């Protein structure tokens, strides 16, 4: 089914840019869907992407991360053992399985639940109208100002599948998106849309290996008094190269909380773009990162942009990175307080723990404030393990390896505390402990 709008935009794109540019090469390798309800959004994305192009190494927003692996036309093949994620195994949840970025109905639970309306992007896009048309590519587009995020635009343009969730009530059973991959060079683009209606509540879990290269975008809209918890875990060999974007629009009195655990992966960039538009809302975004450069390159970039556009709102950014064997940890965070966003309480903490020489922590924690009655602060520290604490533990007979595990866990505690649910936090903690202990003895 040829779509004139998309084709027109693509023709314009092809004409405006000489053949052989990075973007042209990148697009040439993609099988771009024409889209059903997403048609207009995809056409718009094509035009926007054409105008902004792909980022270069001299791009200020890419100061610490080389965009080359994301710009490359294809993904490098990556040896991988497919295994089912066991995280959150003991928790009653609604499982949605994506294999190489496509929904696998046979492996998933039925798409139904109380207070939930779930479908997949591929299924909905084959039909006509859909409620997600109001959001698909829309939050992404509004998140392009003032900083360009070309890979999010690319995602809107190229996404084949994803999950579309509309929440109308308090959903007690978490929705669990489980990624698996089969093809060694799977280059996956997934786009999720979540809308939480007034007073509704949802916990969304994300685990597993997405692809050899992944581009995941999630757009979340929180209505009045809605509550959204997002917990993602990224494992050692889950992705060789991955970029993710979370775009959230937080309404009045709503609560948004996102936590990501990353244990390796070689080249990751996670962007969080949160706009608080309703008064008295709360938005927290946190990550715990454990990077070991020994297994190949480790480069983990968290880039966060929180905009306060309403009064009496609270935002928190808590980022903790433990780095060793030449691992690179990046944090670029920003709190933007718009004129009139009075009584804002904004806080941001980024900390790097360097376990040995050769690792790097690079941070750019920014504040941009246009309202006077606000309380905004940020802190950033980088250093080695506290020798005094180490001495304390050792002098009480704790073996060195175990002492390191304890101190690392305590370093990460503030980030883990952002997970409200005890069971989920417990699972994450167990996973962390296992990972650290296995490394410590190795």
């Amino acid at each position, binding site marked *: 089914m040829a779509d004139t709008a998309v084709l027109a935009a693509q023709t314009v794109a092809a004409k405006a840019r000489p053949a052989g540019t990075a973007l042209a090469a990148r697009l040439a390798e993609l099988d771009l869907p024409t889209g059903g309800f997403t048609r207009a959004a995809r056409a718009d994305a094509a035009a926007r992407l054409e105008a902004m192009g792909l980022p270069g190494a001299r791009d200020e927003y890419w100061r610490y991360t080389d965009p080359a692996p994301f710009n490359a036309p294809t993904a490098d093949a990556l040896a991988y053992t497919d295994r089912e994620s066991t995280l959150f195994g003991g928790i009653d949840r609604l499982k949605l399985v994506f294999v190489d970025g496509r929904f696998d109905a046979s492996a998933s639970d039925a798409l139904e639940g109380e207070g939930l309306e779930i479908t997949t992007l591929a299924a909905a896009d084959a039909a006509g109208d859909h409620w997600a048309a109001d959001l698909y590519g829309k939050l992404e587009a509004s998140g392009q100002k003032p900083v360009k995020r070309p890979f999010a635009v690319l995602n809107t343009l190229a996404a084949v599948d994803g999950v579309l969730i509309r929440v109308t009530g308090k959903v007690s059973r978490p929705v669990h998106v489980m990624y698996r991959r089969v093809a060694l060079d799977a280059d996956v683009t997934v786009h999720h849309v979540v809308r939480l209606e007034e007073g509704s509540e949802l916990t969304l879990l994300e685990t597993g290996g997405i692809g050899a290269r992944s581009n995941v975008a999630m757009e979340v809209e929180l209505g009045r008094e809605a509550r959204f918890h997002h917990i993602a875990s990224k494992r050692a060999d889950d992705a060789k190269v991955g970029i993710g974007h979370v775009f959230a629009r937080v309404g009045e009195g709503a609560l948004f909380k996102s936590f990501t655990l990353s244990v390796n992966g070689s080249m990751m960039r996670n962007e969080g773009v949160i706009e608080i538009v309703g008064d008295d809302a709360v938005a927290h975004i946190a990550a715990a990162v454990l990077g070991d450069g020994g297994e190949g390159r480790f480069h983990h970039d968290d880039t966060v942009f929180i905009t306060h556009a309403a009064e009496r709102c609270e935002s928190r950014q808590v980022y903790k990175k433990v780095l060793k064997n030449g691992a690179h940890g990046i944090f670029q965070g920003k709190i933007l307080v718009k004129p009139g966003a009075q009584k804002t309480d904004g806080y941001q903490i980024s900390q790097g723990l360097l376990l040995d020489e050769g690792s790097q922590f690079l941070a750019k924690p920014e504040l*941009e404030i246009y309202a006077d009655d606000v309380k905004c602060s940020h802190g950033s520290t980088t250093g080695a393990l506290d020798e005094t604490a180490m001495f304390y533990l050792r002098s009480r007979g704790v073996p060195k390896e175990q002492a390191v595990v304890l101190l690392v866990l305590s370093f990460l505690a503030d980030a883990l505390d952002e997970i409200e649910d005890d069971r989920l936090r417990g699972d994450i903690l167990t996973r962390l402990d296992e990972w650290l202990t296995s490394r410590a003895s190795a």
Partner: protein
Amino acid sequence: MAEQISDAIEVREGVDRETVETVQNMGSYKYGWDTEIEMEYAPKGVNEDIVRLISAKNEEPEWMTEWRLQAFRRWQTMTEPKWAMLNYPEINYQDQYYYARPKSMEVKPKSLDEVDPKLLATYEKLGIPLKEQMILAGIEGSGDTPAEGRKVAVDAVFDSVSVGTTFKDELAKAGVIFCSISEAIREHPELVKKYLGSVVPQSDNFFATLNSAVFSDGSFVYIPPGTRCPMELSTYFRINAENTGQFERTLIIADKGSYVSYLEGCTAPKRDVAQLHAAVVEIVILEDAEVKYSTVQNWFPGDEEGKGGIYNFVTKRADCREARAKVMWTQVETGSAITWKYPSCILRGEESQGEFYSIAIANNMQQADTGTKMIHLGKNTRSRIVSKGISAGKAQNTYRGLVSMHPKATNSRNYTQCDSLLIGDQCGAHTVPYIEVKNTSSRVEHEATTSKVDDDQLFYCRARGMDEEEAVALVVNGFCREVLQALPMEFAMEAQSLVAISLEGSVG
């Protein structure tokens, strides 16, 4: 416009000009008057001929002319940086004068006695009497300070030329060279050749490169090994001519084991048209030497609607080249319509130290984007940053800084604190720190806060009979105290009152 008003008022019986001026001086910018003096200008604009002309006016040797031309050619290939959070109309670099000198300076005066009395009067009025044996106001009665400690040697720069330097002979006895840079190029070419451009290379950045091509004057300081400079040195920059850019270049060399404290002040008349100021300060610090560099920047900030003012694009950098070298930058930035300034420390020598204390106040339509860079290259290096930004009116104030710990800079430390204070809901305060840590044994801590003037503190002061402006000034002075304390005493007094004056009209 101010002149017209004062003329109009003068007609009234019993009111003389002095009274009018006194009243005007109580307003926000008290250095806004100009000196009527015959000037000599180079033709407008900048090209290779102008560069040659400036070089010829300064009677420079061939190598210096070449150095300038090299910079100029480089500059033509560069583009103006746009990354700062500053918004100003496009600068037309061809629509201004690059060289302006009082006619009376055509023949270099041999001593201060020969300097045009009008020029001397200008500095007198600015509170910088170009007389020797002077004692600065505000520190009399500090009994334990020896009389000699109060002396301050001054190099006074008026538009494009140095008018005179005081205490030269006394300094020479200690081996200290303190003169204008044009004189140093003639008299001490070996030092200038060795160090000029060694900290801020010709091609460093757009504004520094322009400066390298067209700098007209500035100060030169050399402190010989093991010498503690017997008095504080200072440079006072005055822009007077209209449509004229000031491009001064300062080079300070502190040889092994020496010490110097250097002060810098600057003012300009009130004018409707913005003026460009692009300076370069280079400091070379050798083993065990220490330099303190303090600035009170009080260029004309433009009027309340943002008309006029100085566009201040300054490159300042200190190179702690050898072990245990130490530098301390202290700045009080209250003036300028646009401030683009990042005094930096290159901590190359082992155990070298860099400190940066800053107060930046932006009121009305002022915009400031300022901060520092601490580049740790040597082992066991230390740095400390304390920055206090205050925004009022419709001003925008940005702290932008870099702390970089290179892999070899093991066991190094940095502590950064940047606080912003907002007065009123029309202004902005921003923080853009870059923190790059590439070794594990170093510790870096960064803290930043943004808040408004505390209502309780204001109420406390008001309840004790202060008016609102006084109360705000007191609270703001408290907010800045860590930086004010780092200033030499002469400056601390001035800075404290400047803080209050700069915020006048920002409350209510």
